[in-house]
């Protein structure tokens, strides 16, 4: 059983081919694959369409001069979780959208774009998901430089609320 799971990395390597920059399988049921940000949507499409991966969710996290994106694809038939990673460089923070062809990525990409300021090119519905529509631009709550208790931040409520007050 375990040996079979270790073969899945080969399968992922063959499927991704030249797109792949690195692959690691620290535990039999976890694979971490790294691709360049330009190849990211193409690699995600291969995992979804060719390997039948189910997009469990995606994680964004801030590293020094980039935002790291991890798309957690579950290869249900093999019982292996394949984490597709890429680094999106600051300050452009722009990457092709996976939500354009995979409905499961729709909401999570909206969340990552409002929380981390990543722009997903070609996203079908790039509205706010968790934050209100009138949220001030350039404020990304999950970024490290976002003030935890900003003095007087509540005073500058988004426009929608200002209207309600009147």
């Amino acid at each position: 059983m375990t040996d079979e799971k270790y073969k899945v990395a080969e399968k992922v390597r063959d499927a991704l081919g030249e797109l792949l920059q690195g692959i690691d399988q620290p535990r039999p049921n976890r694979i971490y694959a790294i691709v360049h940000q330009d190849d990211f949507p193409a690699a995600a499409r291969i995992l979804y369409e060719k390997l039948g991966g189910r997009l469990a969710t995606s994680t964004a996290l801030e590293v020094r001069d980039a935002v790291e994106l991890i798309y957690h694809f579950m290869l249900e038939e093999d019982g292996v979780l394949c984490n597709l990673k890429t680094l999106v460089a600051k300050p452009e923070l722009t990457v092709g959208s996976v939500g354009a062809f995979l409905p499961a990525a729709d909401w999570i990409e909206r969340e990552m774009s409002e929380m981390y300021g990543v722009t997903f090119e070609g996203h079908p519905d790039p509205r706010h998901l968790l934050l209100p529509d009138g949220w001030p631009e350039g404020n990304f709550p999950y970024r490290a430089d976002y003030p935890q208790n900003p003095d007087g931040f509540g005073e500058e409520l988004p426009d929608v609320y200002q209207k309600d007050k009147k």
Partner: protein
Amino acid sequence: MKKTILPIGPFHPLLEEPEFFTLYLEGETVVKVDLRIGYNHRGHEKLATGLTWDQVPFLVERICGICSTSHPYAYVLAVEDLLDIKAPPRGQYIRSLIGEMERIHSHLLWLGLAGHFIGYNTVWMWAWRYREEILDACEKLTGNRNHYAMCRVGGARRDVTQEAMDFTMQSLDSNERSTTMFLGAIVDDPVMHKRLKGVGVLTKEDAIAYAATGPTSRPSGVRWDVRETDPYDAYGASLKAKAWDVIVLEEGDVFAKAAARVLEVLESIKLCRWLIENMPDGEIDVKVGNIPEGEGCGRHEAPRGEVFHYVRSDGSNKPIRHKVRAPTFTNLPTYKASCPGEQIADVALITAAIDPCYCCTERVGVVTRNRRNTLTQDDLVKLSVEKTLEIEKKIGRRSNLAKI
């Protein structure tokens, strides 16, 4: 035909997961659904990065009040994945037992609410009464009816006594009898068939595209169950012993979703019995030292579907990133596929069928050109009950519904 826009929402302060729906209607038929969430965003992911590894389970236990063990379970699995350790067998069995007890009481809660929605208040009261037995057993096992705090990194937090397990066995026996009776009541009831069959169908293709999980995807013929595909703790051993089976149905409608949940309760009862009978002796946890640099993913099959946690460590005493994904996050967008083509009277039912929270139906504003009137939750339930009554009349069957 004129299009009407029907906003439902945004939220009920008593329940979690407030949602806002915009239904686009032609006559009484829904043609498009738009959803907004975020009314109760509490920033758990950011909060977790300010807590130590041992404090996070207490925080994530507060994410959900019904399936409260799911999130700490997934979190400790994620940290154990990072550390590459496994809990001792007794610790694993205790955690899995609590997870399954939770599935039983969560499904019974849903069943009761679903009964209330179609106007069968008897179903509602029975289901919640039978749920009490399970909650009592949970209290005996863990000390709490809910929020058990039984998960810690490296094993279980507390041991369970033989006396509590004997009590649980009795509760399971009596619950199995009542759930079997329930199953008969649903499967044989012609009104239930007429009311729920073919309503809000989620096709297999849509379930896969939207990556729906748990009892939302399995009734659509998608065999995805973390307990089976990526077994953790005691689930691998119980599957080998054929102690239970994954419930997969084909129809994908509300009836299938209801039936799947009742069948899952029966499977969970079997599994709980197996876990108690085979409960190993020994330590319940292992000592965990410093958390090294690295990353880990934890997945647990909660009552509503897969709960996913991701943690990243930089070697300090706090996680630098903690990602939480609850099953409703992937199950909610399936309305976009399952609602169009249905009637308003069925929408309350379809939105209830994935087992989110019912908050959204509390307050509905019907906007008709310049006039504006408001439907409350009671009105929506009434609409749904009236449809059930009509069906009863058609098939010449009388119940006590008219009295309500």
